């Protein structure tokens, strides 16, 4: 979906996922360790573990074609259901189509899952009818917990040191007695 604030990027322990200004969210295959944290974190179920490589794959928006050609899916779609272009132009087109259909826009305008997605759907029915999840506009608390729980090491270290100090004190006292 190439979200504005990708949850997968936040969940990645090795910073292998990058968000580019132009839109794409890419996995750096050289950094990926196949831990699958992004697989579980993505509310859209996009990244998939590839047992053949031991790493995770996802759509890369044909970043190697894009400056010169459209993404392959856009080029090959037989019914022309996919359009590719500058975000504002796409949103404009989506709004026109929405008006024609008396439908819904998913990904921007009506709702902004994770800050808005680069894939924008124009739908005839409500998004849930198509199985599109109801995603909040910010990173979920679970992923924030995943990212920041390491800070618990600070109170843990302090607690351990305090334990050590009190134990030493007790030993010194015992020796004195």
């Amino acid at each position: 979906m190439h979200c504005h604030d990708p949850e997968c990027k936040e969940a990645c322990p090795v910073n292998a996922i990058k968000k580019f200004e132009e839109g794409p969210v890419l996995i750096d295959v050289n950094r990926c360790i196949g831990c699958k944290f992004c697989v579980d974190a993505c509310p859209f179920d996009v990244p998939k573990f590839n047992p053949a490589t031991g790493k995770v794959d996802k759509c890369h928006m044909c970043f190697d074609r894009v400056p010169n050609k459209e993404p392959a899916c856009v080029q090959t779609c037989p019914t022309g259901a996919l359009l590719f272009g500058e975000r504002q132009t796409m949103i404009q087109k989506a709004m026109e189509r929405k008006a024609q259909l008396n439908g819904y826009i998913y990904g921007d305008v009506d709702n902004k899952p994770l800050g808005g997605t680069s894939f924008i759907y124009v739908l005839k029915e409500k998004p849930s009818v198509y199985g599109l999840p109801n995603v909040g506009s910010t990173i979920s608390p679970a992923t924030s917990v995943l990212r920041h729980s390491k800070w618990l090491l600070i109170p843990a270290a302090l607690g351990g040191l305090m334990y050590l100090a009190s134990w030493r004190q007790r030993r010194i006292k015992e020796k004195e007695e």
Partner: protein
Amino acid sequence: MTEDKEVPTKKYPPEFTITNITKGMVRTSRVDFLFHLLMAILLITGLVIDLLGPWLGGSLLVIRSVAHGYVGVLFIIVFIVYILRIASSKKMKMVLTQTNTVDFAFYIILIVTGVMVAAANAPWIDILPGLAAAISPIGAYTQAIHVSLTYIWVLISLLTPSGLLHGFACTYLIVHFRRNKNKSEKR
């Protein structure tokens, strides 16, 4: 040498101190050794992935798949054997402290969530009909639970004398015991 041997305290339950918890802890079996070894590997490799990931990047692939993943599977087998041993052995039940039991609860959750992380989007989980659907709501939380529980366990086990503190205390006792033993032998 005889005066070195301490008479065990009669008080029951024993006082809640490191020395009491570690006192009388003897290496009992190979399963016990394996349990500790694999657990330590999992703890260290897990922490390395989470803490050093941004620096070590892709070189952690083997650590994740072999040293945490395959060792994780071995640990699960050893853990089950260990629990069965404890359940069937009076001696083991005696050396276990209440906090060890809390440690076990942590490990069971770590094992369940660990397997769920490892099995993310793996088709084999659908061999059991309905299982994937049944666990999918918690799917989004499994990694968060797996990792944050590790830190919560570290925190709790350093604030109360359990897991890690018991480990440090045991190591300390063993090292000191060895040192004292050498001294007396030299004499």
